[in-house]
Structures are given as C-alpha cells and as structure tokens.
C-alpha cells in the first residue's frame, strides 16, 4: 500500500463506489465522479508543488488506514468524550466522531432550543437527504476540487460531517462547540465534511476542538465551507490538541458578503503533522476579516499554515497574524498570500508572522506574499524569525525568576497577541490556561484520553 497511496485509494473508490453511494445522500454522491477525476490526475500533493514546498503529504497518506465506508456505528461512550472538551464554557456541545455527527443526550434540549429559533444543526448527510434544495445551494460550491487534491479526495469520499444553518436576524449568544474526535482501535482515515451557512444579519461562533483518543495513527482530512451573508458576524476558533501519530489536513474556505465580519483563530498545541489551508474570499464591499493563529511545536511536530486572503471587492479590510514557537526538532511553515484584485481599491490588508526558534534543531519556513493589482491600497507584510531576547531573560532572572519560568513567561507573552483575539471572554481565559499548561509541559491533552494516561 505504501508504494503508491493514490493507486490504492483509486482502487478502493472503484471497488466500493456503490457502498459509498448507498450509505450517503444523493447530493453528496452527485459530486464524487468529478472530484475523483480531479484527484486521479493530481494525486496527493508532494514537495514538488509550490503550495506544498514545506509539507509533503504523500507519506502521510501512505499509511495503511482503514476507512469506515460502510458506516458501521461505533459504540460511543459519551462520558469519555465529554472529558475532552474545553471545560466549563457555556456552549451548545456536539461531537464529530471521526466523520460522524453525534449529539449527546445531554445536548438534546439545546438542540431543541436551537431548532426553535430556526437554526438547523446536525449531520450533513441527514440534512442533505431531508433538505436537498437548501444544502444543494451551498454544498461544494466554493471549494475547488481541481485546485487542491486533498479537497478533491475529501469530496470523493465524504459521507458526513457537520451542518449549521443560521437564518436571517438570528444571533446566537452562546458559542457552538464541536468536539471532533478521532476514535478507533486501528489506523483510521476520516473525511469529515462541514458546511456552515450564516444568513443576513445573523451571528454565530463556532469552536472546534480537534482531539485523538487511541494511540494509533490517524489521518483526518477535513473540509469546511462557510458562507457569511450580508452583515453577518462569524467567529471560527479551532484548537488542535492531538498526538504525535496524528496527521491532520484541513481546508477552511470562507466566502464573505457585503459588510460581514469574520474572525478565524487557529491554535495548534499538540499534533503530529498538520496542514491547515485557510482561504477567505472578500467578495463584496466593506467586509472585515481578522485571521490569526499560533502554533507551539516540540518533539517532531510539523505545523503548516497556508492562508489566502482574496480581496475581490473595494473597501475591505483584513488583518492577519500568525505566531510560532518551535522547540526540539519541530518544523513550522507559514505561507500567507494576500491577493488584491484589479479595482479592489481602498483595500487595507496587513499581515504579520513572528516566529521563535528555541533550539538549533527547530526549523521555520516562512513565505509571506503580496499580490497586488490595484494602486490605491494599503498593504504590508512583515515576517521575522529569531530567538528569545537575552536581555529580557536576564532581567527576569535577575529578579529571582528561575530560567525555565522566565522562558515560559516570555513565550506566553509572545503568543498572547494571538490569544487576545478571542471574542468570548470565558473561552479566552480557558485558552490562555491551556496554552500556559502547554508551555509548562503539563498539558496532558485531555484528562480523558487514553493517550495521556
């Protein structure tokens, strides 16, 4: 299998196509053939592609993973799962186990509460069967299978995921928390597919916590499409806290309409190999976007954040900030592109990438890019890679703070700019505690995970 990963998946598709289609909604099946062709011609992205210069995914996919194409139900012990949440936040709580949406018994009342407001929330597969017109309007419309092979792969095999629809003028005060867990006793690959739609003047916040349960190899290839209609406000927080045998590939694509406001905050604490691709299209005037993220790497962690902000209309603002702290033999990669289309005048787009390497074995690759075709714009990017300030360290130590503690303080201060960009204060506090724990090496991921016991 490891010889040619693409070929084995191509065979799997040819062989199990019927099973795959029988277990999923016709709407999802409709796009498989086209995506399959795109995947077949592209194959898994290797270093030869400029977009994957620093992250080769061919090896990550070459593991002999199992896929749950037959939709065999897992026995889910929800009390185990619940231990994994970022605890103590007042939120609507749901789970995605591998790629299957799961609503715990304790969340049933909340689900009802949401439905009474007209909010549709639940399994993408179920909604694609019950509301094909609604889901069909949005599903697979903004991602392009021919541009990203992993998206094509996801579209070929996608069977379920999370669907959220917030109707006009509905504002959800409480965040929606989705705990996405990889849970299997053998190496498993899951293609979760999420779709989020916010109609005019609506507001929603989604927190995705990505976890792994067993100490086996996982590959999660997640695709999320988000539509943010006029004047809607959407926050997307993602917290990855998995283990070193896990590979995670995610594509988040957001389309913004006039006057909408989007915040994306992507935090990677523990992982194996991670590749996050974020694409945000500002398609109409007066959109605002704040995109930020941070990564803490040690061991042999590999974190790659690739972002594209496309200014396609005038008078939009975007701000981007990514920070990395790399230790041991970890590798960090950041590639950020700001594209300003012709006629997208009065654009303001800023990008900052700051990185700290703690050891000489840590690697950091950064590639900030500006592509500007309009003249009346304010755009800038800045990138730096360096180490802890010795003077600051000395200052702290001279005041009796032990070296380890002083380093921790400085690292925490360094990433704090990113953590400040969380618009839910309870969540902000939780995240800060998690990050601090991470720096102290005390973070045993989630207390309920087998991995950390």
């Amino acid at each position, binding site marked *: 299998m490891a010889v040619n990963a693409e070929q084995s998946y191509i065979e799997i598709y040819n062989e199990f196509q019927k099973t795959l289609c029988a277990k999923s909604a016709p709407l999802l099946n409709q796009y498989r053939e086209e995506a399959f062709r795109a995947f077949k011609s592209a194959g898994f992205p290797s270093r030869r592609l400029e977009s994957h210069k620093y992250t080769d995914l061919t090896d990550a996919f070459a593991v002999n993973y199992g896929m749950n194409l037959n939709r065999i139900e897992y026995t889910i012990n929800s009390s185990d799962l619940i231990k994994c949440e970022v605890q103590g936040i007042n939120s609507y709580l749901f789970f995605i186990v591998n790629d299957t949406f799961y609503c715990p018994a304790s969340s049933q009342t909340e689900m009802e509460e949401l439905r009474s407001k007209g909010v549709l929330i639940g399994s993408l597969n179920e909604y694609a069967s019950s509301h094909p017109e609604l889901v069909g309007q949005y599903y697979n419309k903004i991602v392009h299978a021919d541009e990203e092979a992993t998206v094509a792969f996801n579209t070929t095999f996608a069977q379920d995921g999370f669907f959220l629809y917030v109707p006009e003028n509905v504002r959800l005060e409480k965040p929606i928390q989705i705990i996405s867990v990889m849970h299997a006793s053998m190496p498993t690959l899951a293609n979760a597919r999420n779709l989020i739609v916010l109609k005019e003047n609506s507001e929603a916040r989604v927190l995705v916590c990505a976890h792994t349960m067993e100490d086996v190899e996982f590959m999660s290839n997640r695709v999320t499409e988000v539509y943010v209609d006029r004047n809607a406000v959407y926050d997307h927080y993602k917290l990855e806290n998995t283990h070193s045998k896990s590979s995670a590939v995610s594509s988040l694509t957001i389309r913004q309409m006039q006057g909408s406001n989007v915040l994306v905050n992507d935090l990677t604490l523990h992982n194996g190999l991670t590749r996050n691709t974020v694409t945000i299209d500002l398609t109409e005037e007066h959109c605002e976007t704040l995109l930020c993220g941070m990564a803490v790497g040690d061991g042999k962690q590999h974190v790659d954040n690739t972002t594209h902000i496309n200014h396609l209309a005038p008078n939009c603002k975007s701000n981007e900030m990514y920070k990395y702290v790399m230790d041991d033999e970890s590798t960090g990669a950041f590639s950020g592109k700001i594209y300003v289309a012709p006629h997208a005048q009065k654009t303001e787009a800023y990008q900052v990438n700051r990185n700290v*390497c703690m050891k000489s074995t840590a690697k950091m*690759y*950064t590639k900030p*890019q*500006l592509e500007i075709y309009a*003249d009346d714009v304010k755009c*800038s990017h*800045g*990138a*730096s890679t360096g180490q802890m300030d010795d003077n600051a360290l000395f200052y702290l130590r001279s005041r009796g703070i032990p070296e380890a503690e002083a380093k921790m303080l400085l690292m925490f201060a360094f990433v704090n700019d990113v953590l400040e960009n969380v618009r839910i204060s309870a969540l902000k506090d939780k995240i800060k505690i998690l990050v601090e724990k991470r720096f102290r090496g005390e973070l045993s991921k989630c207390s309920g995970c087998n991995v950390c016991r």
Partner: protein
Amino acid sequence: MSENIVDKVTQGEYKYGFVTDIETDVIQKGLSEDIVRLISKKKEEPEWLLEYRLKAYRHWLSLKEPRWAHLNIPEIDYQNIYYYAAPKKKESPKNLEEVDPELLKTFDKLGIPLEEQKHLSGMAVDAVMDSISVKTTYKENLAELGIIFCSISEAVKNYPDLVKSYLGSVVPYTDNFYAALNSAVFSDGSFVYIPKGVRCPMELSTYFRINAANTGQFERTLIIADDDSYVSYLEGCTAPMRDENQLHAAIVELVVHDRAEIKYSTVQNWYPGDKDGKGGIYNFVTKRALCKGVSSKISWTQVETGSAITWKYPSCVLLGDNSVGEFYSVAVTNNFQQADTGTKMIHIGKNTRSHIVSKGISAGKSQNSYRGLVKVSPKATGARNFSQCDSLLLGDQCGAHTFPYMEINNDTAIVEHEATTSKISEDQIFYCNQRGISTEDAVGLIVNGYAKEVINKLPMEFAVEAQNLLQVSLEGSVG
C-alpha cells in the same frame, strides 16, 4: 490632471533605439552539438572548454524552462536564434583609428568613454559589441598592478588554469535551464582577477550591447577577488530598438576570498518593447557570488529599467565566517514589462550578515515582483538578515507583488522581513505643486527620492545615469 501624468508616464517610449549597421559574421540559426562545436572552434578554444560546453548542452536537453516565476513568458523557439555573431574580424585594431568608425559612433551615442577624452573619467572599458570584445583600454595600467581585466575568450587563451579552476564553480551548468544554455553557447564576457592585497584603483566597467537582429547574447562574466583585495565593477546596458524578441541569458560568477570585497553594480536598460507590449528583450540572468573566505563581502546594486521580461536573482552564498552579503535593487516596469527579480542569501558560515533593500516601481500595465530567499543553514550560528521591499504603484492597472521565502534552520538566527505597497499620495503631489513644482516634476522627484537609498549605493558615474534612466523609463516625454 493626474490622469494626464499617468498617461504621459506610461506612454514614454524608449529613447535609445537605434541600429548600428556593421557587417556581422553569423553562423546559421539553431542549436545542436555541431553549433556548439562550431562556436568553440571559431573562438579557438581548448579541448576542455569544448567538453564543458558539450556537457552543458547535453544537460540542457534534459531540462524544461522554469515556469514558477510570476511571469507570462511567450513560447521561445530555441532553434530560431543565432547563437553566434561577431563583428567581422578584419585585423585586430591597434589604436582607435583602426576601430570601425560606425562602432565608435554607436558608443558615442551611448556615451561610452572609449575615446581619448574619456580617459580622464578614469574608467577602463571593455566594450562588448555582440559577442566579441572589440577593444579593451587601460589594460596596461591595470596589468602593472597584476590585475587581469580582459574578455573571457582572451582569458581562456592566456590564463587557462585560472579560468578552468573557477569557471562553473559558483554557477554549475546544472544550475538551471538558462545557466545550462549559457554554459553551452556562451559567447563572450569579462574576466577579472584581482591579486592578493590589491585595491583596484578605478571602477572597472563593461558595456554590453545586443546588436545584430535575432542574436541571442550569452555573456559570461567571471570575477575573482583574491585575499584582501577590492574591486568595484560596473555593468551597463542599452540596446537598439527591435521588433522581434531577443533572448538574453547571461551568467555572472563572483568569487571572493579572505577579507576581499566585490562591489557589483548594474544599470540595465535594454529595449523594453513599445507601449503596446510588442518586442523587447527577454532577460534571463543567473548571477551568483560566493563569499568563500572569512570576512569577505559582496555588494550587488542594480537598477533595472529595461527588458520586456526580467528573470534575475543576484545571489550571495555566505560560506566564509563573518562574511557579508548586500543587495540593493530598484526595478522599474512600465507599459507591458514584466519583472520577477530579487535575491538569495544563503547563510552557511558563522556570524554571516545580509541586508536586502528592494524598491519596485510599476506603472502602465506592467507586473513587478520581488522574489527572495533567505536561508540559514543549521551551522550558521549568529546569522543576521534584514530585508525590506517596498513597492510603488503608479496607475491602477499595474501589479506589484512580493514573494519572500525564509528558511531558518538555526535558533540563533535573526531574520526580519518588511514589505509595503503604496502609491504616490495626493498630499505629496499637492505639497510640491504648492511650491511651484509641476506635477510631472513632482512625480520624478518623488520617485527619485523613493529610490535614493539604492541609487546612493551606485558609484558616482552610474548614479547620474541611473537617475536619468528612472526619468526616461517612467516619465517618457515628461522628463
């Protein structure tokens, strides 16, 4: 009002377009092993060089044109190019009277200080007309100091050991598509050797010109600065107006030994094509410097205003401890010009430093990209880099792009990158108008001010020319 300026600015035509009518000795079009052999034979080259060319040619056959740059390169038919053209060899001229008067007139138009009165300007000029060195001045003066400054074909004849040991040592023929092509068919260029402890007393200068129609020119420059030496080298180009696209693929190799310094300045003003984007030179150059010794220093300065397509990344390999690499660049694109230019700083030695200042100016419908790499290898402790690249947009149909790459494999490195993109603000123009400066002049003033940081790095003689060039390329009839 301001639209007017932009129109004038963007419709500026090339002022240096003329064709010199000299008989040229041309071999047939196209490229094959026979042509490579023929070039080598015509130049009376030794066996090893022919072998080198053939190896490069065979390697070139296995390569494809690079397409990763942010450029739209039309299909180039490599079989439709003359790979060798030399002014007809009558007898090698011994003094100015013997040089073809047409040629002298051409140099006059370009303002090349080849004649006696130019002697006073203190330059030694090695004029390359098409592919062969026509005349080299000051050689005797330099020879007294032990400095070798001659054409590369002469060097092959007179100093074969030097050439053999350094040729291809910085840019191997396997480096890239255009480097392989150049290694196979390179015609001529300059060779400079500065011996130990010598500080070259004058600016060395070469003017390259592309002249015969349909002639690709493939120069090869090799400069070696031995321990504790210093040299400043100028390279400037102007080319006649042509309808058909011309290919230019040069290689420049610099080797710097212990505590030596090379300052390499370029003013490039080849024909950029007319205002409809027709014609113009394709400039695909591989320039690289190797800081081999400790505390050695390289400084690249370039003012790029010409060429329809520019693909050029003067690089520094900082191998010696404490070595320093600098890169100062102004790239101007107008009309339909495309430029993808920048630098590579490869930090290998300890405590190496590099500094990058890149100023891009785009007008008309042109595309101007900065592409740079800063790489810190695991052993390069204490590496320091600062990069700044600014873009100035004149007009709303042009593009300015930055693609910096930073690959850091060492925790003691400090690498910083800053980039901004802006246009000339109404306030600045208004401020100038208020003080009685016309809008035309104000644009020129602001652009020159913007590029000053780089232009100041040029030697005196070039700084003036560079400033004029900025005016010509941008302001057209305004200037």
